[in-house]
C-alpha cells in the first residue's frame, strides 16, 4: 500500500482547536519566567493561583469546543490535525474535562495544604505548580492521539513531569536533613522518584518495543492505518503481533499500576507529596486507560470481528486477565496494610482493575457502551480518590510530629469526635471506594458489572463482586477507627482550600450516586463510536 505523507503545517485554525493544550503549555512557559523574576520573599502561592486559573481556562475552552461542535452540526465530526496525528473528538474532549477537573482540584487542594509556613510547604513551591501544567497537557495529548508517535510524546510529557513532581521535598525534609549530621537521613521523596523513574523507564521501553513491531508489520505509525493493515497481515505474523501487543499491555499495565505490574505504586505514592500521589493515582491512570481504550478499539477490534479464533479475542482476554489479577491482588494486599497512603495506593490498584474491564470487553451486539462505562467509573474514581487523599493530608496535618507518608490507619482514630464534618466526608469517599449505594463508586461498579454480564463474562463478574466484598473489610477498618475509637486530644485544623476540595469531591460523589444518568446520558449524547473513537484515514 503506497501512501504519501505531505508535511502539513499548523494553521491558526488548528491552533484554535488545540487551545486547551496550548493554554497549558504557554502558561507553563510564562510561569517559569514569573517564578524566575519574582523576589524570593514573595509567596509562591501566586503561581499556584495562576496555574489553577490556566487549568480552568483550559477547561472552559474544552467545553466551548464541545458546544461549538454541537451547534454546528447534528453529527459532530472529529477533526484530525497535523495530518491526522492529533484527533480532536468528543472521546478525547470528555476525558480532557475529567483530567482538567482532577488537576484543578489537586492544584486548589495544594494551595491549602502546601501554604507557606505549613508543614507541607515544598522546598520548590513554584516548580511544583508549573510542572502540574505540562503533566496535565501530556495526559490530554494521550487521550486524543491518532498516531503512535504523538501517543508516546504525550506519555513521556506526563511521565517526565511527574518524575520531578514525585521527587519534590518539603521544607521539613530539608530542615531535618540539615539538622542531622548522620549519614543516612530521610530521603523518601528522592527514593520514590528514583523508583518511579526506573519503573517508568522500563514501562516506556516496553510500550515502545511493542510499538516498533507494530510499525514494522504495517509500515505506519498512524493508528487507523495500522488497524486496517493488521487485518491483512495477521495470518503471516501471528507471533510478532502477539508479542507487540503483550509488550504494550505490560507497559500500559505499569503506567495504570494494574497488578501484576503494580509493585512500584505503594512505594512511590508513599514517598511523594500527597497531592502528587493523588495526581498519579487519578490522572496518570485515567489518561493511560483512555489511551489504551482508543488503541485497542482501533488496532485490535477490527481484527476481532473476523470469524474464527482470532488474535483479537486473545488480546481482549489478556486485558481481562490483567484486570482480574489487579482487582484480586489489590484488595488482598490492602487487607494487611496499615499505612494509609500505601492502602490508598493498593485500593488504586484494585480500582485500576475495574477501570480496564471496559477495555477488555469487546463490543458484542447489545453491549456497546464500554466507553461510557470507562468514563463514568473514571469520573467516580477521580472524585472519591482525590477526596480520600485530601482527607488524609488534613488528618496528617493535625499531628506535628508526623508527615503525610507515615500516616497509619490508627491516625484516623476518633476522627469523628475531633472533626465530625471531615469524618462524614470521609464516610462518603469510603462508601464510594467500597462500591456501596448512594455514591458514584456504586454505580460505576454496577455499570461495569452489567456490561461484563451482558457479554457473558460471568467469571469476571464473580471476581468483581468477590473483590468488592473483600474490600468492605479494608474500608470499614477506616470507618471503625473514625467512629468506634475515642482519642479526642489532637484537634484537626482544616485549611480552607483543602476543605473546599473535600466538599466539592464529596458533593460530586453524592451527585453521581444519586443521579448517575445525568453524566452518563451526557456522555452518550456527545459520543459516537464511529465518529469519536475510531481513527480512520479519510
Amino acid at each position, binding site marked *: 500500500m503506497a501512501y504519501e505523507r505531505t508535511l502539513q503545517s499548523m494553521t491558526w485554525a488548528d491552533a484554535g482547536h488545540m487551545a486547551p493544550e496550548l493554554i497549558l503549555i504557554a502558561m507553563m512557559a510564562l510561569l517559569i519566567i514569573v517564578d524566575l523574576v519574582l523576589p524570593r520573599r514573595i509567596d509562591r502561592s501566586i503561581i499556584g493561583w495562576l496555574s489553577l486559573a490556566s487549568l480552568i481556562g483550559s477547561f472552559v475552552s474544552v467545553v466551548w469546543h464541545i458546544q461549538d461542535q454541537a451547534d454546528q452540526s447534528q453529527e459532530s465530526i472529529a477533526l484530525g490535525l497535523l495530518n491526522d496525528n492529533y484527533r480532536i473528538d468528543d472521546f478525547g474532549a470528555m476525558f480532557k474535562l475529567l483530567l482538567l477537573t482532577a488537576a484543578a482540584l489537586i492544584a486548589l487542594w495544594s494551595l491549602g495544604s502546601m501554604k507557606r509556613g505549613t508543614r507541607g510547604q515544598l522546598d520548590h513551591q513554584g516548580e511544583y505548580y508549573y510542572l502540574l501544567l505540562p503533566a496535565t497537557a501530556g495526559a490530554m495529548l494521550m487521550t486524543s492521539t491518532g498516531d503512535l508517535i504523538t501517543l508516546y510524546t504525550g506519555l*513521556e510529557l506526563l511521565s517526565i513531569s511527574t518524575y520531578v513532581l514525585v*521527587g519534590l521535598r518539603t521544607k521539613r525534609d530539608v530542615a531535618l536533613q540539615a539538622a542531622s549530621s548522620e549519614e543516612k537521613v530521610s530521603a523518601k521523596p528522592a527514593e520514590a522518584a528514583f523508583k518511579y*523513574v526506573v519503573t517508568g*523507564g522500563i514501562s516506556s521501553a516496553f510500550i515502545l518495543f511493542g510499538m516498533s513491531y507494530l510499525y*514494522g508489520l504495517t509500515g505506519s505509525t498512524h493508528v487507523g492505518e495500522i488497524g486496517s493493515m493488521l487485518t491483512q497481515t495477521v495470518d503471516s505474523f501471528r507471533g510478532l503481533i502477539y508479542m507487540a501487543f503483550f509488550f504494550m499491555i505490560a507497559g500500559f499495565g505499569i503506567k495504570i499500576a494494574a497488578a501484576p505490574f503494580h509493585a512500584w505504586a505503594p512505594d512511590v505514592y508513599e514517598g511523594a507529596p500527597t497531592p502528587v500521589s493523588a495526581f498519579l493515582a487519578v490522572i496518570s491512570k485515567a489518561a493511560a486507560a483512555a489511551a489504551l481504550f482508543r488503541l485497542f478499539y482501533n488496532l485490535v477490534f477490527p481484527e476481532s470481528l473476523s470469524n474464527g479464533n482470532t488474535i483479537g479475542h486473545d488480546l481482549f482476554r489478556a486485558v481481562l486477565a490483567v484486570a482480574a489479577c489487579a482487582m484480586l491482588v489489590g484488595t488482598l494486599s490492602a487487607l494487611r496494610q496499615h499505612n494509609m497512603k500505601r492502602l490508598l495506593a493498593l485500593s488504586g490498584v484494585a480500582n485500576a482493575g475495574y477501570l480496564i474491564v471496559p477495555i477488555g470487553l469487546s463490543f458484542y451486539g447489545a453491549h456497546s457502551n464500554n466507553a461510557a462505562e470507562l468514563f463514568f467509573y473514571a469520573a467516580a474514581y477521580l472524585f472519591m480518590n482525590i477526596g480520600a487523599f485530601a482527607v488524609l493530608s488534613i488528618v496528617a496535618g493535625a499531628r506535628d510530629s508526623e508527615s503525610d507518608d507515615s500516616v497509619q490507619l490508627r491516625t484516623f482514630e476518633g476522627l469523628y469526635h475531633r472533626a465530625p464534618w471531615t469524618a462524614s466526608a470521609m464516610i462518603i469517599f469510603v462508601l464510594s471506594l467500597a462500591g456501596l449505594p448512594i455514591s458514584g463508586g456504586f454505580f460505576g461498579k454496577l455499570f461495569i458489572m452489567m456490561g461484563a454480564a451482558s457479554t457473558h463474562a460471568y467469571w469476571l463478574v464473580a471476581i468483581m463482586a468477590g473483590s468488592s466484598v473483600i474490600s468492605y473489610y479494608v474500608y470499614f477498618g477506616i470507618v471503625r477507627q473514625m467512629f468506634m475509637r475515642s482519642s479526642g486530644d489532637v484537634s484537626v485544623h482544616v485549611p480552607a482550600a483543602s476543605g473546599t476540595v473535600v466538599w466539592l469531591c464529596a458533593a460530586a460523589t453524592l451527585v453521581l450516586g444519586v443521579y448517575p444518568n445525568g453524566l452518563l446520558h451526557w456522555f452518550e449524547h456527545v459520543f459516537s463510536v464511529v465518529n469519536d473513537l475510531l481513527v480512520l484515514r479519510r
Partner: protein
Amino acid sequence: MLASYLTMAAILFCIGLYGAFVKRNAVVVLLSIELMLNAVNLNLVAFSKYGMIPSLTGQVFALFTIAVAAAEAAVGVAVLIALFRARGTVKADEFDELRR
C-alpha cells in the same frame, strides 16, 4: 538481513531488562534502561529500511525516542544525585526506606 537486526535488538532489550532488574548500582540501572530504549531505536531504523513497507516514519520515530530518552536520562540522573546526597550511596538495594 532484517532478521539479524531484530535478533540483535531483542538481545539488547533482554540485556537491558536483566540489568534493570538485577544490577545493584543505580547508575548501571539507568544505563540498562537506555539500552532497552536503544534496542527500540535499532528496531525502528531496521524496519524503516527493511520492513514490510519501508518508510521514513520509523526513522522519525527513532529521532523522537532519542530526544525523549535524553530528557528522561537527565531527570533520572538528577534524581539519582538528589538521592546520593541524602543517602551517600548509589547501591540500589540500600534504597529501602519506603518498604519499612
